């Protein structure tokens, strides 16, 4: 009897001990897009698992469905994601609708300073309302639209000579969009290494956000502004001003003259394919794609060059911001573990490793390190690009605003309906209606 009692007590103690361990260690799910950086984060997170005892799970959704899937999750109060690396434009809606946990107190308590991160990423990924010290995310992955070019083709003497003869200048990295179009035209339909190649791959995707990201990337430098700086939501003359019209006309001209046949619905992956397969001389794409080119058999090993978005006709130079911040989902039951992860992720050593593994760190300690520009062939371009970023609306109605621009831009650029002025006038009307519905106008 005594022995049986002893055995039962021992069994209970072991069970209790195991339960205690389980209570401390959580299964933490991180939700993000399915792409190369996510794979790098899985590797990086193993260190966190070892240190914390938590088990990490990952829910990755391909980009075209990422917003649909994850916004559904947030809007329905889903508990799947403890951590969300959500797109920068979601910040307004997620903050106002209570999807994300406000992180100010947590940052203060753990010595995490937003001034340690690249300013544009703090504004773009963390703040809502913009330019106020209200933080809903830690900048996790810096990204920006930039350009890659076939350095090996640019260095061919026969192509250099032909270009100089035609345009009267050297074939090199374009400083302006006008120069970029010249280069794209030069390569369009040209035989290089026995193969017909084309000028440029640009964003034209209709379904999610592709053509908006591409067109905006150009429009900013031509003078497009979202609103009157003195009167919020006053868009007439800014969204559809002469500069914006010229920018959209330029984007259509670039699409018409210099893209490969069948480029009517291309976004990030189509751009990667076009560039890696040697179809195009120039490629517009987010910086996250760049590490993949360096390791590619066809375009790696010094064959690829990188450059910042060129300047517009008046010398303005901006680029479309990409990237995301990492947030704690307010519906999650694993908030403590999620905060623990953010604390771990914010450490300079972890951020340095993140950069090494292909993640674009936003921590100044990493990016301002004197060795940073030489650390990768694209590092300097990344830094220069991040210095000139602008982002799309991050309002709670961003999805409605985005759908309007997708339709207006695709209608004009790809389908060729109407004029650039009509497309942008229509966009002002759509956006005005949305802000009226929101009670902001």
């Amino acid at each position, binding site marked *: 009897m005594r022995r049986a009692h002893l055995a039962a007590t021992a069994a209970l103690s072991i069970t209790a001990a195991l339960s205690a361990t389980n209570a401390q260690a959580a299964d933490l799910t991180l939700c993000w897009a399915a792409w190369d950086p996510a794979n790098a984060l899985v590797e990086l997170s193993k260190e966190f698992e070892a240190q914390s005892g938590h088990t990490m799970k990952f829910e990755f959704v391909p980009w075209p469905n990422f917003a649909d899937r994850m916004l559904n999750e947030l*809007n329905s109060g889903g508990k799947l994601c403890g951590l969300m690396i959500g797109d920068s434009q979601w910040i307004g809606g997620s903050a106002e609708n209570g999807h994300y946990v406000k992180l100010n107190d947590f940052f203060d308590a753990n010595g995490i300073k937003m001034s340690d991160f690249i300013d544009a990423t703090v504004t773009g990924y963390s703040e809502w309302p913009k330019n106020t010290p209200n933080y809903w995310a830690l900048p996790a992955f810096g990204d920006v639209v930039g350009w890659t070019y076939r350095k090996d083709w640019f260095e061919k003497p026969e192509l250099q000579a032909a270009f100089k003869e035609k345009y009267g200048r050297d074939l090199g990295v374009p400083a302006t969009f006008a120069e970029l179009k010249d280069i794209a035209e030069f390569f369009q339909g040209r035989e290089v290494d026995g193969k017909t190649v084309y000028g440029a791959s640009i964003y034209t*995707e*209709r*379904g999610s956000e592709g053509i908006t990201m591409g067109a905006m990337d150009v429009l900013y430098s031509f003078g497009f502004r979202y609103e009157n700086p003195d009167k919020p939501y006053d868009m007439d003359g800014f969204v559809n001003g002469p500069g914006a019209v010229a920018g959209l006309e330029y984007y259509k001209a670039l699409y018409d003259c210099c893209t490969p*046949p069948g480029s*009517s*619905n291309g976004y990030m992956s189509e751009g990667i394919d076009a560039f890696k397969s040697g179809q195009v001389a120039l490629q517009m794409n987010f910086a996250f794609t760049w590490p993949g080119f360096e390791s590619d058999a066809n375009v790696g090993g010094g064959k690829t060059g990188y450059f910042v978005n060129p300047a517009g006709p008046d010398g303005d130079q901006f680029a479309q911001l990409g990237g995301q911040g990492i947030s704690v989902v307010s519906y999650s039951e694993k908030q403590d573990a999620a905060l623990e992860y953010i604390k771990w992720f914010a450490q300079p050593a972890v951020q340095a490793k993140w950069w090494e593994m292909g993640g674009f760190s936003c921590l100044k300690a990493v990016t301002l390190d004197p060795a940073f520009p030489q650390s990768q062939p694209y590092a300097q371009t990344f830094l220069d690009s991040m210095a000139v970023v602008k982002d799309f609306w991050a309002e709670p109605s961003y999805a409605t605003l985005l759908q309007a621009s997708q*339709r207006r831009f*695709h209608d004009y650029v790809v*389908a060729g309906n109407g004029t650039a002025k009509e497309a942008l006038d229509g966009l002002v009307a759509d956006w005005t209606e949305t802000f009226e519905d929101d009670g902001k106008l």
Partner: protein
Amino acid sequence: MTDDIISRERAAAPGALRRRIGGLSDRALAWIFIVPTILLLLAINIFPLIWTIRLSLTNYRANRTNAELEWVGLRNYERILTDPDIWNSMQATAHFLVWTLVFQVLIGFSLAYLINKKFKGNDLWTTIIVLPMMLSPAVVGNFWTFLYQPQIGLFNYVVAFVSGVDPSSFSMIGDVRLAPWSIVIVDTWMWTPFVMLICLAGLRSIPDYIYEAAEVDRASRWRQFWTITIPMVLPFLMLAVLFRGIENFKMFDLVVQLTGGGPGSITELTSINLKREAFEKWRTGYSSAYAIILFVTVFGLASIYVKALNKVKER
């Protein structure tokens, strides 16, 4: 007859169950069988419909559940019916619907007519022809984007071979004039076998003696076709049109994979447009009104059509 069945079942049931069934009337038994179905229908069909009608009269947005709900009456309906984009979408749907039905009926009936003739390899050809309809629409949409690819696509090469134009000089899914036809071609390729099978069933249901009698009366083949084959296959054909019409009115996956609604909005069918309103723009009240309008349209058209079908069957 029903009583016989119940008595037999009662006799076959074990003791306790027999006593329990024995205490129930036929009507009660019928209710026991019907109630679960009715409850299920109420829960998954009728309640959501009523709820959707309610939502359509509000400004509700599913992504802002904490916002104040405002009663807007018929404003959503008014906005939809006066929105030129919605009408463009309806036009794109009508183009898709009409042409897919025309092609599928013509080709489907012709194939059925040919397959109905006895020839060597008849069964093999039937199997090959019905293969496309066994594939997933998303898969079909995806691989047709490759077939339509101007640089490597087989479709462009075939057209180039036949017409002599440069294969990369046209883009089926990137050109506003060609894109509406690109989705018609793919849907026709995929669903013509379905129409063919229904027509084949119709053709095989015609008794041989009718043709034999016509032969005796010296009716020509042409006359037999128009006075025997077509009238007797017509109810089957109309049924196929009804099925395909309803399916194509709500077409989504195939077109999303192929064109994403583009270029511009030229192939943005109502279902794609509705999905964007409901789950991308999150205008739940507005999209509920949109869904109700589509439901009434399909329901109304289908009812008229079924009446016509019944009349044809009665003849």
